[in-house]
């Protein structure tokens, strides 16, 4: 099972890289054969490294959720980019490093959340506490309301991205 999945992923990536090389659909015969050979080799070597103990990411619903998640992510990126462009021009910044606790359990969901936080400008994930799964986020224009109470509210920083990350990989 692990071998089949790894081989299939490797073969798809190889085919994407060599698209447009021939006339069998879009590939040449040589590329199709050599790609299959390399995919089998890669699958045999890396099957335990590519897929861990946890098989929950095989669920197609999670992949579909991830694709849907790209739209609010892109929207947040666009909005925040205009905000940072404004701060670059005017120079009005108010930076801080705040600790948030998104209540995520798995490593993959935390990775998705940290990358999303970094991609939306104005916030940059600096460090993670691996024991409690808390993120330290550098925030370029801190909201004074958030600084008042100590378990910080994460909604001004990353909206409802933790819920999305939990749905995708939780």
């Amino acid at each position, binding site marked *: 099972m692990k071998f089949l999945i790894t081989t299939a992923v490797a073969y798809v990536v190889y085919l*994407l*890289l*060599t*698209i*447009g*090389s021939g006339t069998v659909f*879009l590939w040449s015969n040589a590329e199709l054969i050599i790609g299959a050979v390399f995919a089998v080799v890669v699958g045999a070597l890396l099957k335990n490294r590519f897929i861990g103990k946890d098989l929950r990411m095989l669920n197609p619903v999670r992949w579909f959720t991830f694709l849907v998640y790209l739209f609010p992510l892109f929207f947040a*990126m*666009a909005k925040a*980019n205009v905000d*940072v*462009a404004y*701060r*670059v*021009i005017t*120079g009005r*910044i*108010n*930076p*801080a*490093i*705040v*600790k948030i606790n998104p209540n995520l359990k798995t490593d993959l969901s935390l990775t998705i959340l*940290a*990358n999303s936080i*970094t*991609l*939306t*400008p*104005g916030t*940059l*994930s*600096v*460090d993670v506490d691996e024991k409690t799964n808390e993120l*330290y986020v*550098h925030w*370029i224009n*801190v909201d004074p309301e958030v*600084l008042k109470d100590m378990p910080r509210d994460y909604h001004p920083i990353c909206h409802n991205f933790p819920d999305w990350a939990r749905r995708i990989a939780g």
Partner: protein
Amino acid sequence: MAALNIVTYIFIGIGLFFNLIGVVGLHRFPDMYTKLHAATKCTTFGSIFLIMAVIMQAAGIWAQGGTSQSVMCVHAVLVLVALLVTNATGAHAIARAAHRSGEKPARAVVDDLGGKEND
């Protein structure tokens, strides 16, 4: 094709604007972390639009029967995915390394990480 060209020019314009903002921010901001904001995030967003312009041109030629352009189109999509993953991870790694080597955020209001032991 004319409409496609106009959309491509608009995308290139947006992309260059955000890349320019990134360069200006790199010179204006006071410290390491804020410079990282400008240098990595604005350029990521600008590069997304530049790559989308490439994808649209290549897909336009592909749709008219030039299969040799399919490689350009798919490779641009792969570049976009790689850029999104590595740019965020790289910015995170640089920021973490800077904080561990004692770089303090300038003009910071609060620093939750400051009192934490570096283990």
